[in-house]
């Protein structure tokens, strides 16, 4: 897979990988998102590749200054691939500027979606909820320490691996991803399902809502929560709340802030009425 007469050394790639890991999100802004940082990561590479073609160098810098956005951690594969493509181009292979830009653009979407839901939305909550269960009762520092160690080693390791993987597979990586649709579908479906189930589990231990109102009549005092809702299903109220929030967001196109406001108002009313 690797170019025989590679221009770039292992050291160059390592350096770029570290640049990416440290800076990927450092220049985030609403206009270009990760664009400037991407160019920053590529710059030393491009300098070396187009050492004797200053015009190509300028054009290359410009094309990597464009808008770019993805989930930066899972997305570490993309700069790896990009470097391999630039190297091939510098060696005179038939790799057009458009192809390079289009590949970046085609990959950044799926990697944002999968990365956000799997890395930030599933893996991190798993670790956090384990860590929280280690320390919530007595404030033991082992919880946050456990999280830091496991999170940092696995995710930095993953970025390192993906960056190099992207470089070594080169444009093939993108092809594999987009042509073997069936396998990609299987993996995506499988990960999505895994994620949704785990998210459900984490949500059930995090979102909470309970009625404290007790119906009192004479000597009899009936806890509405225990007597009715818990018999239907413990956690039925927070479940309805979560599904309701999703419904409003997805079907009724409510904005996040509207839902936050809605829940806050609901909580205020319920507290005021002594129900919750």
């Amino acid at each position, binding site marked *: 897979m690797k170019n025989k007469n590679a221009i770039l050394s292992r050291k160059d790639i390592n350096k770029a990988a570290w640049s990416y890991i440290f800076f990927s999100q450092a220049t985030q802004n609403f206009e270009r998102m990760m664009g400037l940082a991407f160019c920053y990561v590529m710059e030393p590479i491009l300098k070396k590749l187009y050492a004797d073609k200053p015009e190509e160098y300028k054009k290359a810098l410009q094309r990597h200054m464009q808008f770019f956005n993805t989930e*930066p951690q899972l997305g570490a594969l993309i700069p790896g691939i990009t470097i391999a493509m630039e190297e091939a181009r510098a060696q005179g292979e038939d790799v057009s500027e458009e192809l390079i830009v289009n590949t970046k653009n085609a990959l950044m979407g799926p990697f944002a979606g999968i990365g956000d839901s799997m890395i930030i939305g599933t893996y991190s909550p798993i670790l956090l909820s384990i860590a929280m269960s280690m320390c919530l009762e007595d404030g033991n520092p082992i919880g946050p320490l456990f999280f830091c160690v496991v999170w940092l080693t696995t995710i930095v390791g993953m970025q390192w691996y993906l960056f190099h993987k992207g470089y070594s597979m080169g444009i093939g990586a993108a092809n594999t991803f987009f042509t073997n649709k069936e396998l990609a579908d299987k993996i995506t479906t499988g990960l999505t399902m895994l994620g*949704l189930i785990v998210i459900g589990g*984490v949500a059930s231990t995090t979102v909470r809502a309970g009625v404290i109102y007790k119906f009192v009549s004479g000597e009899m005092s009936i806890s509405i929560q225990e007597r009715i809702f818990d018999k239907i299903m413990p956690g039925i109220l927070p479940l309805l709340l979560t599904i309701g929030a999703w419904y409003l967001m997805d079907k009724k196109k409510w904005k996040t802030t509207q839902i936050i406001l809605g829940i806050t108002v609901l909580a205020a009313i319920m507290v005021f009425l002594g129900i919750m």
Partner: protein
Amino acid sequence: MSFLQALLIGLFAYLGSKRTPWVFGVTGGWNMIGRPLVAGLIIGVILGDVRSGVIAGAMVQALFIGQITPGGAMPADVNWASYIGIPLALAAGGTGEQAVALAVPLSMLGLGLFNFIMTINAYFPHMGDRAAEKGDGAGIRRATYLTVIPSFILRAGSAMLICYLGAPLAESLINNMPTQVLHFFAVAGRMLPAVGFAMLIKQSLSQKWMIILFLMGWIIIGATNMTVTALAILAAGIAALFVMAKGETKVVTAGTQTDEEDDCYEE
């Protein structure tokens, strides 16, 4: 809270903000130091009460555990919630409940700052553009490094100042807060994580029927002694069974579309 303590807290607030490169970039910064759980430990160490810090951190963490920020859209500013909410609560002698009560409104207010930085930072790519045009590599590096400054000033500064100056106010606020208001923040705080999960579901759901998977996960955790790790393994099993039961066929079917039957036995 001493000035030094406020200063240190401001520094960590910056290190845990979204654009910080220092500790393995976004991975060690925003996604680690920035997490309320970790913030709680750090603040606890700084203020000399690790135990309360960790508990407050864990409780504030619950508010934001499922939060994602797709395309830079931040639903609530975790940074202020962690690095202003937790220290002010501890300084006022409170712990988890008080931290939650402060974190909820602060996470709303902080959004303004977040969006402000996201906007002014749009200046630097233009600086980069000019450098690129001239083939000036050093210029690109300069633009990149300069981007760090506004974030540093605004994140470290705001956290430090509010912590330092706000402590007395927060103290009187928390001490005079009617229990019902504290209770309200507790109730709202327990309900608000629903928003993060709703976003997450919306983001993850490729087909509508898959919402049932979210419900399954919820129910399994609720009715058994499974830890989240165990659930993740079980979920992997369910996903594998589904994909294998469904996927296998496609291959077979694909086989039948050719004229030669010999590969139909494919398994």
